[in-house]
């Protein structure tokens, strides 16, 4: 297994692996498992789904991960709790999972728009879980928009924000389709929280276009007397920071006419298992894996591991 091979070269006192489990084997879970597999500090011990026939479970097996179709129950029944559990199911399922996971002391990284945990957008909040045991990745549109709306509102007197995202149909799984309301609510909540702007509108388009549409997020902002050059500089700086973990993140257009600012962002996926247009999954999973890796590198964790091992 590539993970073990990577570890033999690592200095054990600096890189202790954390044990990881993933719940959910849909489009997001599959890419997540691949990213975890590539990470030198994350050791994927279990992938839990509900459907024994699911392609996601087979994919996890092909990477050498243990799998189960018995869902979260199998995860709870494991002899040792996992250090980190990624929840890639649905908002409603996560609300059921969290009370079951909380007593285990596990760090739970939630990729659903449940609004339960502490919101993370890496370039804005950092990725340190601090004391939170439940970290929430908001939504794909949240990951794409929050860095820009945060930077805009910090610099300009923004009075209104609108975030319109387009996701290709074949990378919008059933949970996403059932969670459109939750997506809108969680994304809107994050935009307001990180911009301070209360008048916010969020829209999600699922596009069945062929060839598939690359994930994009358009931000419309009302900014009195916006200076196009100053706006562009702020947006470019924010995008540069996001590219540190999501290299396919780019500003396609940025205009300011009168008080109306329009910013078009596109995210291309850089992934083993995703088509390039699935930037929606790539950006949220890349952020989630960073949270876990940061947790693995925490000094208190490393020293604790040092004592026990």
């Amino acid at each position, binding site marked *: 297994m590539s993970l073990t091979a990577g570890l033999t070269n690592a200095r054990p006192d600096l890189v202790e692996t954390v044990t990881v489990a993933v719940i959910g084997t849909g489009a997001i879970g599959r890419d997540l498992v691949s990213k975890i597999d590539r990470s030198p500090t994350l050791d994927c011990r279990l992938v839990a789904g509900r459907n024994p026939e699911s392609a996601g479970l087979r994919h996890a097996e092909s990477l050498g991960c243990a799998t189960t179709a018995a869902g979260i129950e199998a995860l709870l029944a494991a002899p040792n709790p996992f250090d980190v559990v990624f929840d890639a199911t649905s908002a409603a399922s996560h609300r059921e999972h969290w009370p079951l996971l909380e007593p285990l002391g596990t760090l739970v990284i939630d990729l659903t728009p449940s609004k339960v945990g502490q919101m993370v957008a890496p370039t804005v909040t950092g990725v340190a879980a601090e004391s939170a045991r439940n970290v929430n990745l908001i939504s794909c549109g949240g990951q794409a928009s929050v860095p820009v709306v945060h930077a805009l509102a910090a610099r300009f007197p923004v009075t209104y924000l*609108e975030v*319109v995202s*387009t996701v290709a*149909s074949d990378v919008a799984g*059933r949970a996403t*389709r*059932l*969670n*459109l*309301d939750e*997506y*809108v*609510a969680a994304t809107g909540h994050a935009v307001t929280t990180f911009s301070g702007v209360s008048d916010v*509108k969020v*829209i*999600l*388009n*699922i*596009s*069945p*276009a*062929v060839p598939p*549409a690359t994930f*994009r997020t*358009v931000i*419309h902002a009302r900014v009195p007397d916006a200076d196009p050059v100053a706006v562009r500089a702020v947006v470019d700086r924010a995008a540069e920071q996001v590219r540190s973990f999501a290299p396919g993140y780019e500003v396609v257009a940025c205009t300011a006419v009168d008080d*109306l600012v329009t910013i078009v962002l596109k995210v291309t996926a850089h992934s083993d298992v995703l088509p390039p247009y699935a930037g929606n999954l790539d950006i949220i999973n890349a952020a989630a894996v960073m949270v876990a890796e940061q947790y693995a590198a925490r000094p208190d964790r490393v020293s604790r591991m040092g004592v026990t091992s």
Partner: protein
Amino acid sequence: MKQLVIHDPTLRDGQHAVRHQLGLTALRRYAEAADAARIPVVEVGHGNGLGASSLQVGLAAATDDAMLSTVREALRHSRLGTFMLPGWGTSDDLRKAIAHGVDVFRVGVHATEASLAEHHLGFLRDAGAEAHCVLMMSHMASPDELAEQAARAVGYGAQAVGIMDSAGHFLPPDVTARIGAIVEAVDTVPVIFHGHNNLGMAVANSVAAADAGALIIDGCARGFGAGAGNTQLEVLVPVLERSGFTTGIDLYALLDAAELAERELMPAPPVTASMSIVSGLAGVFSGFKHRVVELSGAAGVDPREVFFELGRRQAIAGQEDLIVDVVAELSGRRTDG
């Protein structure tokens, strides 16, 4: 005589033609006239439905709340309808609309994406509201595919299901095949047809739909709608009656309502302009028109060729960025040649 239900989205789909700027007085005046004509369902809202007022597609002149309560008060006989697109509107919007006394909800999804309506159809069913599911841009899917999607929508709780000819692309035999397949697949619920008039076929297509078993037919006063407009309601109703269907609508009052609509809702009735004919032939969303014309003009390419190429690429609403690609490619091809 077979009874049809005529569904009138003049005050919703017509909004596209006036950038969602219908005022409350206009809404009330037309709703009263439609009610007097005994049109069974009067639909109102932003053109893209509940919660859709936005910089992205246009801010509405009135809020959803104000539009719904104004039209509710104006209707004594007709039922009140509204529309929503999942991802644009939410269950909160549906909840508020129920509180306003909306009788009929239309949940719209792209022709191949019925599963996007699963949550909201279930929500409406559980709330005891009448929910319809409409498959938009239906010319992009085969009769079998549409039948399968329609059956799914019924499984999710739709109490009526049907198709919109959003690009105005169909000819009557296309409609006959599609409505026939859907009627066969969902024999427990009524089937809907919603036409557009890009090729002057909206009334003929609607008659074909009724002949094939559709029980709910949409039409707008004077065809009020974007581009070439919708099926012209005051033509549709008497033609259906002559074809052997009953609608329960009072013809003279219907003609009066159409006069009022022309005077008070629209600067001018829809015209089948050249570019609408091309977008209908190409099967491309008519909302692309302005950008196609603008970008083609700047690059010196024929906008008609751009539309046909967009049709070959199966462009759909939301993919406006493809226009840029196509214009650039056609422009390059011409230079190379």
